[in-house]
Every structure is written in structure tokens, then in C-alpha cells.
């Protein structure tokens, strides 16, 4: 399987802090790779560095063989990278429709794609002309994800989509992301919810102190309780 995204020796500094300390990993085409680790390990910084929102101090980042570490964020987005930030960052003063119109860069909204999205996010249809700021947290997350998939993307970077959501909403989101996976999307996802990570991940990377401390198949980590406890300080059984 070919690698869509590859990071080699990537370092990122934010001010005087050395956050990413030489990370190397690859995300295979059509696979979902989970990025796990405790708070402050560098997961969000990794996604933001790939997206160009923070500049890598050194190292190489390539997307489908093309170097992107020096490119501006809009250029990286136009190469086909969709980004769902941790804060969701929906445009609160715009309606749901306007948020999606803006995300559909290359033309009008595609009805078939919209119907597909409404299929698992019916709330977006219900609140189509409502201000995004009036949505609940779960609905905002749905809009944020819908915005990332309104047009075909090569790669989706998703930062903690289940954070702060009620369990029922988390289950709905997991089903939605599974559907997106089935359509062949390549996803790099930061997740603290180990249950969601196990449900969605093909591969897993575990970060600590700005470095990758474990890489492998998600299924292997999910079945190895001592490894989970060593890497994450918890086990799936206690987390559920």
C-alpha cells in the first residue's frame, strides 16, 4: 500500500518551546491512522504542522510525493487536505449552508454529496439556514466534519472529534467516520477516546514528548492490555 503522507525528521518550535522533536511516520493511502498520546504530547501540533498552520523548523513533509513543509496553508488545502480542528472552528455568524458553501471551493454545492452528508448528519438539514453559532457542540462537530468532506479530499486531518460530546453523539460520529472510511478516505486522526480510536483506526501512532514512541496496527494495540497501560496509562477495558 502506498503512503499518501510522509513525515521525516520533523521538528516544530513554537516560540522558545521545542514541541515536535524529529517525528517520522507515514500514513498509507485509504487507511485511518490514529494519533494517540497524553495531553501535551504534540498531537495537535503535528496536525497543525502538516496543515502549515505552524511552520516546521526542519524536516520533510510530503503529500503524494510532493513536498509541502514550506507551503502556505491555503496551498496545502488546495492539494486536497481537509482539516477538522479540535475547536471545530465553525463560522458561528454564518449559517450552516454558508459554512458549507465556503468549504466547497471549486463550485456550487453538489446535491448528491449533500444528500450523502445529510444521511448521517440530519441535523445539518434541519438547521440549514440557522446560524452555526446556535448549534449544539455535537452539531457543530458534525458541521466541521461535513465542511471537510463536502468536496473529495485526498487526506483528512481530524483533531479529537469526540471531545466533550455526549456518548450518543460520539456513537453517531463514529458511524459517520466509518462511512467516510468506507468511501476510501485517508484519515489521520488525533483521538483521546480509546474506544473511538479502536473502532476507527487501522494503524496507530503513540506520541510522547514530541516524539513517536510506538507505531503499529490498531488491532494489535487494542488486544494488548499491558502495552496500552504502558503507552497510554490506561487499558481499553477500564476506559469503556
Amino acid at each position, binding site marked *: 500500500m502506498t503512503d499518501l503522507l510522509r513525515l521525516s525528521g520533523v521538528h516544530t518550535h513554537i516560540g522558545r518551546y521545542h514541541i515536535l522533536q524529529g517525528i517520522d511516520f507515514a500514513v498509507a493511502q485509504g487507511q485511518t491512522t490514529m494519533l494517540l498520546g497524553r495531553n501535551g504530547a504534540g498531537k495537535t501540533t503535528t496536525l497543525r504542522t502538516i496543515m502549515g498552520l505552524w511552520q516546521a523548523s526542519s524536516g520533510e513533509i510530503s503529500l503524494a510525493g510532493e513536498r509541502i513543509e514550506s507551503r502556505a496553508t491555503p496551498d496545502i488545502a488546495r492539494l486536497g487536505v481537509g482539516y477538522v480542528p479540535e475547536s471545530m*472552528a465553525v463560522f458561528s455568524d454564518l449559517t450552516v449552508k454558508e459554512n458549507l*458553501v465556503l468549504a466547497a471551493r471549486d463550485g456550487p454545492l453538489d446535491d448528491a454529496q449533500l444528500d450523502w452528508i445529510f444521511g448521517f448528519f440530519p441535523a445539518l438539514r434541519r438547521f440549514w*439556514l440557522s446560524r452555526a453559532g446556535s448549534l449544539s457542540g455535537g452539531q457543530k462537530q458534525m458541521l466541521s466534519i461535513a465542511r471537510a468532506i463536502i468536496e473529495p479530499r485526498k487526506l483528512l486531518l481530524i483533531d479529537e472529534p469526540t471531545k466533550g460530546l455526549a456518548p450518543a453523539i460520539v456513537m453517531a460520529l463514529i458511524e459517520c467516520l466509518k462511512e467516510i472510511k468506507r468511501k476510501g478516505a485517508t484519515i489521520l486522526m488525533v483521538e483521546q477516546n480509546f474506544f473511538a480510536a479502536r473502532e476507527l483506526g487501522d494503524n496507530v501512532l503513540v506520541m510522547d514528548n514530541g516524539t513517536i514512541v510506538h507505531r503499529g496496527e490498531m488491532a494489535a494495540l487494542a488486544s494488548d492490555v499491558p502495552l496500552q497501560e504502558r503507552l497510554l496509562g490506561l487499558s481499553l477495558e477500564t476506559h469503556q
Partner: protein
Amino acid sequence: MTELAATDPLPKPKRDIAPILLPIAVALVMIPLIGSPSTWLTLTAASLAMGMMIFIMASGLTLVFGLMDVLNFGHGAFIAVGAYVATLVLAPFAASLQADSLWINLAVLAPAALLSMAVSGALGLIVERVLILPVYGQHLKQILMTTGGLIVAEQTLYAVWGPQIIPMPLPTSLRGSFILGDVAIAKYRGLATLIGLAVFIAIQLVLNRTKLGLLIRAGVENREMVEALGYRIRRLFLGVFMTGSALAGLGGVMWALYREQVHASMSDDLTVLIFIVVIIGGLGSIGGCFIGAILVAMIANYGGFLVPKLALVSNILLMVAILMWRPRGLYAVTSR
């Protein structure tokens, strides 16, 4: 989550109309206080005209503030430059301005206003590239740089045009008033109101009916996310800054004609009013800026008539009252 049936109509957005009702309520409350209906109508018309001119000058600042997070204390320079540039056209054609034909008068006024907008817009380009670009994200430095820029601009105007006040008389056809019964409404105020409304409608159409407008509104709220969607917002910043500067230039011409004079520090008092309007309206909100400008003008006119001694503090009191009601302005732009 309740799913709508396919045939259900999609819900309409709720409108927050309380701020829209506020100037209407203020005007209605003033009727018994002022007593004479004709005086009330004259003051209301004057308020609308003054409000429109302040709106034109403030609209660019609120967008720049909201979209670019730039504190441009030099915005007044574009107002003064716009007014002075207009004199370059109006002075040589003074005879045409005295002609008793509206069309001949407008044939001189329109190019003067367009030239003012072009020069102010071009000055905006230079200011953004030279003064603002190095200090994005640094508010204190922005205040220092733009205040310095304002001083340089004012002194340059003194050096080029001299310290004297330059008269800018109204064209003949815009002098005098429309008489409706026993109500007199100055013709120029009528024109200013129409131009202000046209500018407001044009901005609203661009912001609400075009993708460019969507980008500006989204950028006001979250620049980073707009870039993550693949849009180069820096170019948009520059375009908005130039447009805001050009509108300030237009406002400068209109204000100079309203006062019938031009001087280099003409924007000093206006800058305070404009900042009050931008804060009252909610940083980055064009609708709020529009209502805020009308409210400021109403308080100045009604207040000046009823309690002249309060005129100096009336706008500050208005700002305090509005911010106590809505701490982020009439129409708060979220997450800013």
C-alpha cells in the same frame, strides 16, 4: 436529534431586530420631548444625513478591525486626504459648481469623489504594505505606527496645502432646502442620506450575496480556518483595507462639503466619533456600524437641541449605555 421529513420546509434564521428598533424608539421618544413636529423632522433628517456620512467613514474601519485585527488609529488620514484631493478637482471648476444646474454640479462632484476614493485607496495600499504589514498581531505597535502615520499625513497636508482652512462651498443646486409643509430638509443632507444608504446596501449585498462577502464575514471570525479551507486571506485583507480607505476618502469629501471647509486636522474629532460607532456596533459588524452611526448622530442632534451642555459627553454616555446592554456591541461578531 430530530430528523426533518424530506418535505418539511427548512427553518429560517431568526433575526435579532432589537438593535434595529433602537433608533426608531429613540426617534419616537424624542417627539414629545422636542415638542414641535417640524423641528423633530428637521433634526431627524439631519441625524440621518450625519449618520450616513459617519457610517461611510466608519464602515471601512470596522471591517479592517474585524477582519484584520488591526487597530488603525490613522484611519482619519484617509478622510482628510480624500477631502483635500477633492479640492484639486473642485477648485479649478468652481464656476461649474456655481452653475444653476444639478447635472453640471454633479459632473464636477462625481469625478472629485471618485478621484478622492482612488487616492485614498492607493494610500491605503501603501499604509498596509509599509506600516501595517510589519506589525500584524501586535496591537501596541499598530497604535504607534498608525498614530505616527496620521501625524505624518496631517503634517504633509499642512506642508502641501498650508495651514489655512480651505473653503469648500456646496454647489448651487445643493444649497437650500426642500420645504415640505413647515418642515425644511436641507438638499445636501438628502443627497448624503441617499449616498449613505446606497453604500450600505452595496456593502450588504456584497457581504451577504457573494462568496467574496462570505469570505470576509468568515475571515472576520476566524482567519486561520478560512486559510485552512484553501483561501488566500492576505489578498482579501489588502482588498478590504483599500476599500475601507477609499470609503473613508468618500466620507471625507462628503463631510467637507457638509462643513463647507477642509483643514488638515478635520479628522481629529471625527476619529473619536468613528471609534465610538465601531465599538457600539460590534467590531467587524457592518449592520451594527450602520445603526451605531445613526444613533451617534441622533444623540448629537437631539442632544444638542435639548441639552446643549451635554453635547460633549453625550456620545460617551451612549457608548456606556449600549455596552451595558450588549457588552460586545449591538451585533457582536462571534469569537472576536
